[in-house]
């Protein structure tokens, strides 16, 4: 059975209504790309107040001071959600959490760092996951899941945003200060001649669209709410139509 989850940054908490929540078993909160979009305790509490039962906190690469500060915050998040998962974009955070909690916190390997791991030797990867208390590898690459020949590693599939790149020089920041001006904004970026094509900017990361439905056999699907709650339904309808035609 595939678990259904929805992913939001703290900026989108308002869009997470009880009606939206009905369709999902788990909520991802935070960002695997931006250190300024980690949730505050109040934001996690807001999630609890909205009736969320299962929480996964998304985390990006973190410099030392931010890592230490997040560890303190996460300890308090565990007070609100004792079974909270942590999706890690940083191997140092993996080490620190495993040392602090002795393997009791379920860990996932987040994008984009997971992109390297899904390309690694499968036997090593299975052992690495087992040794480091990692439960799922988070990816948006269906072809990589299909090509994965090993056992011992389960996947969660993120869609419809397919990661392309990320920056610490965020275009929404002014004078090096983040005021979360990226809230609610997704820019369509078009290439100029002689190049063709377009992609998108959201927060501090660039992405393309995963147009298909999640591949079969994944343990979890994670839909990005910012794509619009209706988007998921449209994708399913399109996929069903394609299947029928085939």
């Amino acid at each position, binding site marked *: 059975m595939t678990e259904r989850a929805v992913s939001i940054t703290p900026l989108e908490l308002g869009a997470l209504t009880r009606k939206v929540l009905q369709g999902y078993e788990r909520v991802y909160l935070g960002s695997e790309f931006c250190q300024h979009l980690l949730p505050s305790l109040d934001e996690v509490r807001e999630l609890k107040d909205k009736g969320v039962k299962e929480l996964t906190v998304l985390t990006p*690469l973190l410099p*030392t001071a931010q890592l230490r500060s997040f560890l303190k915050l996460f300890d308090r998040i565990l007070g609100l959600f004792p079974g909270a998962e942590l999706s890690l974009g940083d191997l140092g955070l993996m080490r620190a959490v495993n040392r602090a909690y002795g393997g009791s916190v379920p860990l996932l390997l987040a994008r984009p*760092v997971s*992109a390297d791991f899904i*390309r690694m030797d499968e036997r090593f990867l299975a052992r690495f996951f087992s040794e480091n208390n990692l439960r799922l590898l988070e990816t948006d690459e269906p072809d990589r899941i299909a090509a994965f020949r090993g056992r011992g590693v389960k996947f969660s599939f993120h869609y419809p945003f397919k990661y392309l*790149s990320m920056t*610490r*020089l965020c275009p929404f920041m002014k004078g090096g200060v983040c005021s979360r001006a990226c809230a609610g904004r997704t820019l369509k970026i078009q*290439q100029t001649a002689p190049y063709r094509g377009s992609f998108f900017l959201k927060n501090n990361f660039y992405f393309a669209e995963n147009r298909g439905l999640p591949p079969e056999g994944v343990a979890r699907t994670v839909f990005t709410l910012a794509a619009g709650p209706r988007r998921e339904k449209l994708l399913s309808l399109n996929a069903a139509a394609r299947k029928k035609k085939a």
Partner: protein
Amino acid sequence: MRGMKLQVGIGSLEELDYYLGEGADELYCGLYSIPNHVEGARNFSAPAEVIAAGERARRAGRKLFFAANEVHKELLGRTAETIKELVEGGIDGVIIKDLALLDALREKKVRTHYILSTLSYCMNAETLAFYSGYGIKRVALPEQLAPAEARELLRNPYGVQAEVFLKHRECCINYNGLCFLDCHGGLTTFCKRPFRTGKDEYRMAGPGAAERLAELYDYHRLGVEVLKVGRSPVKEASRLIFREARQIAALLGLGLPKERFVARALRIKAGFDALYRYLGKTI
């Protein structure tokens, strides 16, 4: 005050001789048959050639490292065997990104000077501790990490040293090891192109040279000893960057206050800008 050691990437014995003559302290190279992260760079053709280059560097009192800083599971066994052969042949160390490869080399008991690639994103002291468990002796600092953020990492208790790129010349705007933008093609990279968002022009922002040089100054003060010059697709460009790096490394050795260092380094940079422009027109 000492300047910084200079490390430079090479793709042939001819380049090795050139940089030995120009005073490079460390050199590194790749093999065409082993994945390594560089756009359009020249590599060596066979392990014997790399071993010969290592011997030549050693006779000159310098070091040669081998770059195997990509992840490729189909080539894991071959890569590990090749590194074993090169280490037995006397090369001084290996630049690595793939954890599975580090693990395989540990199993094979291949002991050498392991350098963690900048592409592995060692952003904090905990990550450094994690990788030191895999035998890493030096870390190439992520281009996106600021000196103030690296302070604790650099004072690590494991004896792991650090190196940095000459970032005002060689630095990706985005996280380069985690980038899937289609970055093919010589001197123009994807992220430096002009784009449009509706009617507006959009450019991916990068920091200014003064900021980068100030960072270099701080890294030097924090004890980073090695300044690294990567492998450019155009060998003449690499030579220019190396010469610029050499002048800036020497300037660091003068122990100037930061503002004076940056001002003088910017003058060096301006001189080289003209040479890069000339190079751009002639190739």
